């Protein structure tokens, strides 16, 4: 039985023990989703959007779909993956199951809790019915697969006029209790008018076993709200991640998604911004620093539908060994979206002959009074800069590291949480295999 058949045949059993009200809207959505997945199946390289990323090597695994119960994972096993230097809310999942022991939730100023309770409790029914699975794309079979099995993940509901003082960390651990495991976390984030929230998301395999995570996040950003979302992707070489994140913005809102990809076997990020009003600002930043045979595919979309909006996209990549990167950045400026300012930049450095980047900027502009620009570079380290630095006494390896640091720096500069910035700087240093002893 292949993975697709296994998933479809497991669906019924999942629905029965899912513990959800069968009349619910969610049930209908799940049913429709599994049908769509059954029709579409997993994407293949014949699909234009998947031309450079093959899921084939992942699909041959005999994944366990419902890892059993919460494993005993102590705080000290996971401590280093958390940002503890600051007070934060924490939503921690162990093999897909919420760990109340490791987490810090709240219902005081806002709701920071789990999706399973939001899906079942009457007091959240209105929120769930109004938002859940409304922007996750139907033609994306992987997000449909996630919807079909949607049960657990983060539920973040910020009422209007609320500045959430503490960042929220969402961390999904896998323990390796099963040899091969498929996890499908589902996050729903609703941020009310004038509110502000910072979210850090991470997936981490604690073992050497195989993990495939198919994650879907829907983020709703209301009028004048501000959302800063950080994704840390620094997993083991046996872990793969398909992340689909959908952002819907109302007028005058500002949403930023930063993606830091440092490790994993195959990472695919689908990131979509839909602008549903005027004076919206959408920001997409990313750094990939890869080595060995790691593969990271960033597929982004910004859909400008209304006038006077902006989008700023900056993705950088440093590829060593036989790693591969894909950047596919699509910007649509609809006819009504006059006075749009859309900027996209993608810069890549290939450090070894075996490394590859496939970069594809895609601009579809239907309005005539807009400012749109895109730039894409692929290069190697500047030899004359290296000689310059060496002639000042800086050894070649340090000079390389300094240049690469500097290359990545303008993306790191965009991190607004200082402790996270320090963490990311250290991760970059580690991935570049150096430590210069100062922060840039």
């Amino acid at each position, binding site marked *: 039985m292949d993975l697709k058949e296994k998933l479809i045949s497991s669906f019924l059993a999942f629905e029965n023990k899912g513990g959800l009200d069968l009349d619910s809207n969610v049930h209908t959505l799940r049913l429709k989703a599994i049908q769509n997945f059954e029709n579409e199946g997993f994407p293949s390289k014949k699909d234009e959007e998947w031309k450079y990323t093959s899921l084939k090597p992942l699909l041959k695994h005999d994944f366990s779909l419902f890892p059993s119960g919460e494993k005993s994972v102590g705080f000290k096993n996971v401590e280093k993956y958390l940002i503890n230097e600051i007070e934060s809310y924490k939503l921690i999942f162990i093999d897909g199951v919420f760990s109340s022991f490791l987490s810090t939730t709240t219902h005081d100023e806002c709701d920071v809790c789990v999706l399973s309770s939001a899906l079942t409790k009457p007091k959240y029914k209105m929120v769930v019915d109004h938002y859940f699975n409304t922007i996750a794309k139907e033609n994306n079979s992987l997000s449909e697969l996630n919807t079909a099995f949607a049960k657990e993940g983060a539920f973040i509901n910020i009422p209007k006029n609320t500045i959430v003082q503490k960042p929220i960390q969402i961390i999904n651990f896998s323990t390796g209790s099963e040899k091969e495991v498929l996890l499908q976390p589902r996050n729903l984030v609703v941020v009310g008018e004038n509110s502000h929230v910072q979210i850090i998301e991470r997936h981490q395999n604690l073992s050497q076993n195989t993990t495939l995570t198919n994650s879907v996040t829907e983020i709703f950003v209301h009028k004048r709200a501000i959302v800063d979302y950080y994704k840390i992707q620094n997993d083991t070489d046996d872990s793969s991640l398909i992340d689909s994140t959908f952002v819907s913005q109302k007028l005058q809102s500002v949403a930023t998604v930063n993606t830091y990809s440092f490790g994993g076997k195959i990472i695919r990020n689908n990131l979509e911004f839909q602008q549903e009003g005027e004076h919206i600002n959408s920001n997409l930043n990313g750094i990939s620093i890869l080595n060995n045979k790691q593969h990271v595919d960033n597929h982004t979309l910004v859909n400008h539908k209304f006038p006077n909006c902006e989008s700023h996209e900056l993705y950088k990549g440093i590829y060593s060994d036989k790693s591969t990167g894909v950047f596919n950045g699509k910007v649509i400026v609809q006819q009504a979206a006059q006075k749009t300012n859309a900027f996209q930049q993608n810069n890549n450095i290939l450090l070894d002959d075996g490394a590859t980047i496939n970069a594809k900027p895609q601009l579809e502009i239907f309005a005539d009074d807009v400012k749109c620009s895109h730039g894409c570079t692929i290069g190697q380290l500047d030899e004359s800069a290296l*000689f310059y630095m060496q*002639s000042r*006494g800086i050894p070649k390896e340090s000079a390389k590291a300094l240049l690469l640091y*500097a290359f990545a*720096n303008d993306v790191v500069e965009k991190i607004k949480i200082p402790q996270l910035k320090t963490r990311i700087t250290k991760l970059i240093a580690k991935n570049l295999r150096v430590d210069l002893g*100062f922060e840039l």
Partner: protein
Amino acid sequence: MLQVKNLHASINDKEILKGINLDIKAGEVHAIMGPNGSGKSTLSAVIAGKEEYEVTEGLVILNNEDLADFAPEERAHKGVFLSFQYPVEIPGVTVTNFIKTAINETRKAKGLEDLPAKDMLKLIREKADLLEIDRKFLSRSLNEGFSGGEKKRNEIFQMAMLEPKLAILDETDSGLDIDALKVVANGVNKLKNKDNAVLVITHYQRLLDYIVPDFVHVLHNGKIVKSGGKELALELEKKGYDWLK
């Protein structure tokens, strides 16, 4: 201090330097002049250890040590400094962080601890003042968006920080107006002492009005065709290079 003996160097199998001899003693200022394409910049790059050039014959000796097997950074640690004709822009690295790294790497190579931050700051301020460099300038990205004058001044600032034994100034006057030229030359003169040496590489005599050489050498087609005192520079200025060919 520096002896260059029968130096031959080529790039991509094309011979650029065809047997150069130089002897520079501590406390001296030497100038190398010559038309475009004579090999001036190649000579400075070869002394600094640029890997693209292949030394096919001859020696470069600094303080009785053959430099052949040393990488550019090791030559820097031994006291060679090259002021670039075209300093490279390095976005994202500030002038301060760059010079800090350079100083501490040099100290590390000599088995010394990092210079304490307080002392580093003091030294940076002292040398910046010497070259009339604005403090704000120090937190800008290295050479990024610098004017020609700022770039050259920054080169001499780095020289002041690193206190080399042998400073090679490659076309330091190019792209400088007369005021910037004076500041730069003044900086070099202040740094000059009896224990170090300066090799000025220039196309024009202009710079030599301010940094007065003890010896002038004329480079042509990869060879030194004439050597003399500072008056040779004036003669070249008047007659051009043609009479030497």
